[in-house]
């Protein structure tokens, strides 16, 4: 870990401005991913802006009947929120399927969205990795890739986004609210928030330099059965091989997003029309053009089977 200076920000605008002004600064909130990466010098900020004091820790109704989740709401609190449990159960379930109790107590909503891949080559600084060190190559291609992406990949990167929460937010059509260094705010639909790797896998979101996430808003509840099914070798405290977030209505229509398969939560709205016809039809469209490795090709049938299980559970 390189030495860094540290300050506590007093307002979101001030934090964003400081970030824009200082070279190589980072925001820190829960710290559960950033410090992990700083210890390995995968992240090497010279300055940390602690945003924990920004009072962005409320969950409150929005004017249109939706819900606004402050950026600093801890994963535990979001999962346990009465409204979320009642109206956005897929989000509660996704959060509770992730990490451990200790980590959920610290990890924040915004930090969860911004957590970086768990690709083992990204974590090993002796190995080439385009995400960590652009232009150095991707060791995962042709290497150990059982956990890695099967779709939306590029010749530069086959990393996955590790979040469970983001998969549920994707299926809920969340919007990521931010403030920029100039004080401008915007709301980014989550569909466009995370990027595919392309030839710049080190750029993971559409956030601009200094842009600070202030919250995530959810549209009004859509009803239906909410299911989050996470599949992993270990029964808990493990990243997903595949996860399925589904909201299924009584008539069999609904929405589905898949985790553990791509550089971002994977959802293809056009595929959802096939939901009443069953998992196979949906999966065929969801995963059209998939390029798995020999080690992770199983994720395609696994995703289909998991989706089938989710749909069956919704029906039951």
């Amino acid at each position: 870990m390189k030495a860094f200076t540290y300050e506590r920000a007093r307002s979101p605008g001030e934090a964003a401005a400081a970030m824009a002004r200082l070279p190589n600064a980072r925001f820190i909130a829960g710290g559960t991913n950033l410090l992990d990466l700083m210890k390995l010098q995968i992240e090497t900020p010279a300055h940390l802006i602690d945003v924990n004091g920004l009072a962005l820790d409320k969950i409150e109704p929005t004017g249109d009947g939706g819900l606004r989740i402050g950026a600093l709401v801890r994963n535990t609190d979001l999962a346990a929120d009465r409204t979320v449990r009642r109206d956005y159960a897929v989000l509660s379930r996704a959060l509770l399927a992730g990490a451990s109790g200790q980590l959920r107590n610290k990890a924040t909503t915004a930090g969860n969205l911004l957590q970086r891949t768990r690709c083992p080559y990204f974590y090993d600084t002796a190995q080439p990795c385009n995400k960590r060190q652009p232009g150095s190559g991707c060791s995962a291609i042709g290497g150990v890739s059982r956990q890695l992406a099967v779709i939306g990949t590029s010749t530069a990167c086959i990393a996955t986004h590790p979040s469970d929460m983001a998969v549920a937010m994707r299926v809920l059509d969340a919007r990521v609210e931010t403030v920029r260094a100039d004080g401008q705010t915007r709301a980014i639909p989550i569909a466009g928030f995370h990027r595919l790797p392309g030839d710049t896998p080190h750029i993971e979101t559409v956030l601009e330099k200094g842009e600070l996430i202030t919250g995530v808003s959810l549209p009004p509840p859509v009803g239906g059965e909410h299911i989050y099914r996470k599949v992993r070798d270990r029964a808990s405290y493990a990243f997903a091989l595949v996860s399925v977030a589904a909201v299924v209505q009584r008539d069999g229509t609904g929405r589905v997003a898949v985790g553990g398969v791509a550089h971002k939560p994977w959802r293809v709205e056009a595929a959802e029309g096939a939901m009443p016809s069953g998992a196979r039809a949906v999966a065929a469209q969801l995963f059209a053009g998939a390029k798995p490795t020999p080690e992770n090709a199983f994720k395609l049938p696994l995703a289909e089977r998991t989706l089938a299980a989710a749909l069956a559970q919704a029906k039951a």
Partner: protein
Amino acid sequence: MINPSDIEISRRGLLLAGAGSVAATASPTSLNAQAPGEPAPVMAKVTFEVNGEARSLDLDTRTTLLDALREHLKLTGTKKGCDHGQCGACTVIVDGRRINSCLSLAVMHEGDEVTTIEGLGAPDRLHPMQSAFVKHDGYQCGYCTPGQICSAVAVLDEIKAGIPSHVSASLTAPSEVTEAELRERMSGNICRCGAYSNIVEAITEVAGKRA
């Protein structure tokens, strides 16, 4: 809230070759680069309460809460098993919640109340959870044990507070103390000696006495 897009890619990338690392390509190679001298440590003062006692420390900002406890306050009951949030040996209770102290900077705990294993009890006056671990042999090598015990104490509070878990059948019904619930909630504390079955018995006994 780390914005990866503002990373200074080219320079940072080169600096990253750390820990004696190079790409294992077929020819002699090195990713070394021109790099400025190492910046001096930045010191910061932090005051928090540990086990009911106010403590003030002047620390390198890089110091984790775990290392502040172990290396500066000599409270070595809290263990470093992985230093990356992957094992739970460093679990402490901060303002009533269990966290991995390895993934938290000490300077970020200004004014916080920290409870470590030493704050729960001592050999001659064990906390009920500590006694239950002894009675049920809920440990072997003992290295994950303080983290397990801190976690267990907090887990019972989480259940009492109605926080659901991954295995809760209903998200809206009150949380229960079942073996399945305890196993899921304790899963962030790895015990390689494999005392899990006994640990769950110990926690169950304490939960029963409490109810």
